[in-house]
């Protein structure tokens, strides 16, 4: 298991890379940034991904797919901040959490209803919902909390 300080630094770098670029770093990016060997970074990343809920790598690879609340592959939960739509949330619930990473800024969640495909839009700032379109929009989990981590992608 990697040292706690290393895990903290990797966690910060991953989130800050998402915030700046809209996508996840690779373990080679992390190795270079931390001044460690690629293998040490790869193993530490594996430890970190196992420790944080809502994070996983593409099966059989070391590529980050999800690092809550962000997703590194396109989903129908798109996030716009300051006129830039370059972030993707892991799921509809995570989309409502992204606001906490952009403190003081207005963010917009653009999602789609899985029934009709039409837009669901939520504007937020610092955790507060400013506006919902349509106003009667709801959030839904198809699985109970106890089963969220059986297969996070289908909840």
């Amino acid at each position, binding site marked *: 298991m990697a040292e706690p300080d290393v895990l903290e630094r990797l966690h910060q770098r991953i989130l800050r890379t998402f915030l700046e670029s809209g996508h996840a770093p690779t373990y080679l990016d992390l190795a270079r940034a931390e001044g460690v060997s690629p293998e040490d970074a790869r193993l530490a990343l594996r430890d970190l991904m196992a420790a944080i809920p809502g994070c996983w790598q593409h099966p059989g690879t070391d590529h980050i797919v999800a690092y809550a609340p962000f997703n590194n592959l396109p989903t129908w939960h798109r996030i716009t901040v300051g006129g830039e739509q370059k972030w993707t949330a892991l799921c*509809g619930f995570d989309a409502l959490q992204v606001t906490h990473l952009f403190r003081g800024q207005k963010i917009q969640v653009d999602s789609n209803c899985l029934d009709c495909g039409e837009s669901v839009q939520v504007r937020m700032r610092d955790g507060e919902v400013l506006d919902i379109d349509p106003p009667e929009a709801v959030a839904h989990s198809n699985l109970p909390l106890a089963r969220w981590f059986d297969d996070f992608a289908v909840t």
Partner: protein
Amino acid sequence: MNLFRSEEHVRRWAKFDPESTHGIKPVREIAAAFNTPLITERLEPDYVRRLGERIPGLLAALDQLGGGSPFWQLPPTAEADS
């Protein structure tokens, strides 16, 4: 977890599980439940180290959101281990 245009749309969704009726919540209520340290303190320098201390706050908020429904609770053993 997804966002839908209304509760009616959830119930019409091809993959809707009728046992997930308790999983339908107003967007504002779900968003409010996420105002807990596990979610709001992701950029804190001790986030990973103190993850275990932050998880119960989210579980309590989700329990409150669910009004005591088992749908929004972990089984007692799993909760004790978290």
